[in-house]
C-alpha cells in the first residue's frame, strides 16, 4: 500500500453509555481500494464503532479524519454526504414502498418539484445492477420480497448514495448462499473501483475470503491489525479473548446423576428458518447456558419453549411427558411450571408505571387470589418474602417500578416469576445493563434455585457468565445447536471459537484453558 494519506482514520475515539465503556481510545485506518474486516466478540465495540463512523452517535472523545482533514458528523445524512454509507444489519427499508422508492429515499430525483419516477427507476436499476441484484424489479414492493432480497436492496440503496467508504455490518447474515457469492463478487469489484469497504462479520471464512486487512476489537479498543492470511483462525480467537472480568461466581454443584427423566426435553424443535432441529434436555439442578453470537436463534428458542411462537414443530417433554405449550398462560401452569425472564425488562418484563407490588404479584395473581378476588394479606406476605429473598431495595411497595434502579427492576422481574415457584426457569440475557453487584446476586440466586431443584436455561451475551454459571453450554449458530460444551470444556476460547464456527479451535483447547 502507498504511504500516502489514508482515506479514513480515527484516533483515540471513545464512547460511554452511562457507566459502560463501549469504545475506548479506538484507532482505525481505512485505505481506498481495500476490504477491511472487523472482528470481535459480543460487546467488543464493533457496533459502536460503526455508529460513530456513520454519524448515528457522536463520540465523547477522539478525532476522525477523511483525506487527512478532520471531520465530524452531526447526523447520518452528514456522514452520507461525506461519502460514508452504512448497510445496517437491522433493515431500514420501508416495507410498503417500492424498491426504487426505497433506493432513492433520502434524495429522490425531482422535476418541477415532484419526484421524477422515470429517473428514479433508472437510478434504482443502475444501483441494483451494481449490487449484483439486477433481477430485482425496481417497482416490486419491499414487503413482498424475501429477507435475503431485501438485504440486497439495502446494499443497492447504499451504493446509490455513491459512497467512498461502504460499511457492511453482518450484511450477509440473512442472505442465501448464492446471494452471498454474488455480494462477494460485487464487493471485490467495488474494491477495484477504489472504494474502501469495512466488513463486519462473525463468519471467519468470509473474512478470510474477502478482507485484505483485519482489525480485532476487544473491550472497546483495537488490539491488532494485520494483513489477512498472516494469522490463523486460532490466533485470531486468542486475540479476541482476554476481556477484563471482575465477576465472582458461586461454586458449581456437581451434577447428580439421576434416573428421573429430565425436567424439560426438546426434540427436533424447528420454527421458520430461525430455529433448526434443536434437541436438548435439562435435568433438575442443572444450569444450561445458551451461547453463540447474538441473534443466532437463542431468543426464539426461549420464546418457542414458552409458547409464544406459532407453528413450532418438534416435541417438548416435561418430565418425560409430551406437552403442548400454546401460550405463556399454559407454560406457567402448575403441571409445567415454566417462567421466562424476558429480554427487555422495560417493555416485556415490567409494567413501569405500576407499583412494585402490582408488578411483583402480576404473574402469580392466581396464587394470591380466590375466585378472582385478591387476598391482600396473602399478597403482602408473598411480596415481602420476595423482597427479602432477592434483597430488592425499594422505598416501599407503592412506588412505581419505573422509579427503581435497573438492577432492582431486573430483580423484580425475576421475583415476580419466582412467586409462581417455577420448576423451569428461562432467562433471556438477564444481566444486560445492570450493575456488577446485582449481577453477582443474580448468579448466586440462579445457583441456589438450581440446587433447590429448578432446571435453568440461561441465555447470555456475556461469555464470562456462561463460563461462571453454567453446567453445560449449548453454542448456537444459524438457528441450530452448533456445539455442546460441558464442565471443563466451557472456556472462553471454546465459546468464541465455536460461536465463530472456527473448526480447529478444539485442538488446543486445553492449552488455552490452562493459560
Amino acid at each position, binding site marked *: 500500500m502507498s504511504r500516502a494519506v489514508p482515506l479514513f482514520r480515527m484516533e483515540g475515539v471513545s464512547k460511554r453509555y452511562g457507566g459502560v465503556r463501549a469504545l475506548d481510545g479506538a484507532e482505525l485506518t481505512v485505505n481506498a481500494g481495500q476490504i477491511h474486516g472487523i472482528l470481535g466478540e459480543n460487546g467488543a465495540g464493533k457496533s459502536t464503532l460503526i455508529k460513530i463512523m456513520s454519524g448515528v452517535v457522536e463520540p465523547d472523545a477522539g478525532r476522525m479524519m477523511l483525506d487527512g482533514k478532520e471531520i465530524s458528523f452531526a447526523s447520518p445524512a452528514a456522514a452520507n454526504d461525506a461519502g460514508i454509507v452504512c448497510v445496517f444489519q437491522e433493515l431500514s427499508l420501508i416495507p410498503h414502498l417500492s424498491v426504487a422508492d426505497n433506493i432513492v429515499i433520502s434524495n429522490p430525483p425531482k422535476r418541477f418539484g415532484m419526484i421524477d419516477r422515470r429517473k428514479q427507476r433508472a437510478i434504482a436499476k443502475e444501483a441494483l445492477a451494481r449490487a449484483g441484484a439486477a433481477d430485482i424489479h425496481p417497482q416490486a414492493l419491499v414487503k413482498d420480497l424475501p429477507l435475503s432480497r431485501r438485504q440486497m436492496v439495502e446494499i443497492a440503496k447504499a451504493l446509490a448514495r455513491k459512497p467512498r467508504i461502504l460499511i457492511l455490518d453482518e450484511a450477509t447474515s440473512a442472505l442465501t448462499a448464492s446471494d452471498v457469492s454474488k455480494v462477494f463478487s460485487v464487493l471485490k469489484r467495488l474494491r477495484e473501483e477504489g472504494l474502501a469497504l469495512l466488513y463486519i462479520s462473525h463468519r471467519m471464512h468470509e473474512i478470510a475470503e474477502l478482507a485484505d486487512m483485519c482489525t480485532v476489537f476487544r473491550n472497546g479498543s483495537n488490539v491488532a491489525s494485520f494483513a489477512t492470511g498472516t494469522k490463523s483462525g486460532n490466533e485470531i480467537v486468542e486475540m479476541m479473548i482476554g476481556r477484563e472480568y471482575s465477576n465472582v461466581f458461586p461454586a458449581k454443584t456437581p451434577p447428580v446423576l439421576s434416573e428421573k427423566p429430565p425436567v424439560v426435553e426438546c426434540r427436533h424443535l424447528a420454527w421458520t428458518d430461525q430455529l433448526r432441529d434443536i434437541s436438548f434436555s435439562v435435568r433438575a439442578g442443572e444450569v444450561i447456558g445458551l451461547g453463540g453470537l447474538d441473534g443466532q436463534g437463542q431468543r426464539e428458542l426461549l420464546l418457542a419453549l*414458552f409458547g*409464544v411462537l406459532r407453528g413450532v414443530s418438534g416435541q417438548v417433554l416435561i418430565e418425560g411427558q409430551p406437552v403442548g405449550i400454546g*401460550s*405463556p*398462560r399454559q*407454560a*406457567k401452569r402448575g403441571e409445567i411450571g415454566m417462567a*421466562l425472564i*424476558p429480554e427487555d425488562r422495560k*417493555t*416485556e*418484563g*415490567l*409494567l*413501569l*408505571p*405500576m407499583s412494585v407490588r*402490582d408488578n411483583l*404479584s*402480576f*404473574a402469580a*395473581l*392466581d396464587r394470591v*387470589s380466590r375466585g*378472582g*378476588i*385478591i387476598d*391482600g394479606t396473602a399478597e403482602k406476605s408473598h411480596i415481602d418474602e420476595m423482597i427479602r429473598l432477592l434483597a430488592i*431495595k*425499594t*422505598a*416501599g411497595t*407503592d*412506588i412505581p417500578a419505573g422509579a*427503581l*434502579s*435497573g*438492577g*432492582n427492576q431486573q430483580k423484580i422481574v425475576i421475583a*415476580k416469576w419466582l412467586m409462581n415457584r417455577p420448576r423451569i426457569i428461562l432467562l433471556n440475557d438477564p444481566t444486560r445493563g445492570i450493575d456488577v453487584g446485582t449481577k453477582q446476586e443474580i448468579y448466586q440466586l440462579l445457583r441456589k434455585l438450581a440446587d433447590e431443584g429448578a432446571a435453568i436455561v440461561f441465555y447470555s451475551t456475556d461469555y464470562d457468565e456462561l463460563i461462571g454459571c453454567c453446567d453445560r453450554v449449548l453454542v448456537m449458530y444459524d438457528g441450530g445447536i452448533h456445539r455442546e460444551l460441558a464442565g471443563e470444556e466451557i472456556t472462553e476460547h471454546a465459546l468464541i471459537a465455536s460461536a465463530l464456527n472456527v473448526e480447529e479451535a478444539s485442538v488446543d483447547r486445553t492449552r488455552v484453558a490452562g493459560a
Partner: protein
Amino acid sequence: MSEISSSGRQRSNRQALWRRIDPAVATAFGCIVLLLLVGSIYSPNFLHLDYLLLQLKVASFLGVIATGAMLVILLGQIDLSSPWTITTGAMMACAAAAYGPVGVALAIPFGILCGVAIGIVNGIGVAYLRIPAMIVTLATNAVAQGLMVVYTGGFSPQDEATEAMRYIATGFLIPGVPNAVLVWAVVGAGAVFLLTRTTFGRAVYGIGNSERAAYLSGIDTRHILVIAFAIAGGLAAFGGVLLAGYSSKAAQSMGDVYLLPAIAAVVLGGTSILGGRGSYLGTVAGAILITLLQSILSVMQIPEAGRQVIYGVVIVIMLLLYGRAPASR
C-alpha cells in the same frame, strides 16, 4: 442509581402521599368547586342542596356510561359504539316491556344484555381479529343503529319505559336521595372493587400499560379484552335504560350526545387516554364536572352550539395538560 438513604426515605414517604393525590383528580375537583362558585354568582341556587342533588342525579346517567368507557380506556382502547349501545339498551328495554308481565320483569336485564352483546362483538373484533378498537366500535355502532332503525321504522318507538325503569331513574328509595344516584353509587362501588381488588382489575391495568408484558406474564389478554368490552357495552346499555326511565321512553339518537361527554369525563378525571393509568374517583369527578359545565352553560343561556365549542376546547386543553404522549422518538 444509588439506593435510597434514610433521609431520602422520609422524602419519598412524603412523595408517596403526594402521589396518592393524582394532580388531575385534584384539578378536576378544583374545577368543580370553581364552577359552583362561578355559578353561584349567576344564581344563588347553585349552592342549594336541591340543585346539587339534581346535578348529581343528572351526572349519574353520565357516570354509569363513563364507567364502561373508563374500563375500555384503561385498556388503552376506545369504545365509539356507546351512542347506539345506549340507544339500543333503552329501546330494547322498552320493547321488552310490550311483551306482557314477563317482558316487563325482564325489561332491564334484556336491555343490558343487548349492550353486552354489542360489547362482545367489539371485544372479539379488537382482541381476536386485532382490528383497531376505534374502527370496530364505529362499525358496530353503525350496525346497532341500522338494527334500531329497522326495528323502529325510523320513528321514535311507542313503547313506554316500565315502572321499574322509571323507579330506578327517578324514584326515591331513601328520601331526598334520587335513586339514580344510588344506582351510580352501586355501579361505582362495583367498579372500584373490580379495579382495585380483583385479578381482573390488575390485568386491565397491566394490559393498558403493556399488553405484551401482560401476555408474557401469562395473562389471557384477549379474554380480558372481550370481558371488558362486554362490561362497557352492558353499562352503556344500562345508562340507556336509566335515560329511558328518566324520560319515560326511548328516542332515536338519544345516545349521540353522550359519546364525547363520557370520554371527556374519563379523560378529565385523569385516566390516561393511552391506558393503564387512572382512578375511578377521577371519573366521578369528571362526570360531575361535565354535568356542572353543561348546567352552567345552560344557566348562562349559552346555546347548544356554544356548549359544543366550549366542550371541545376544554377537553383539548385538558388533554394537552395531561394526556400527551412521551416526547421521545
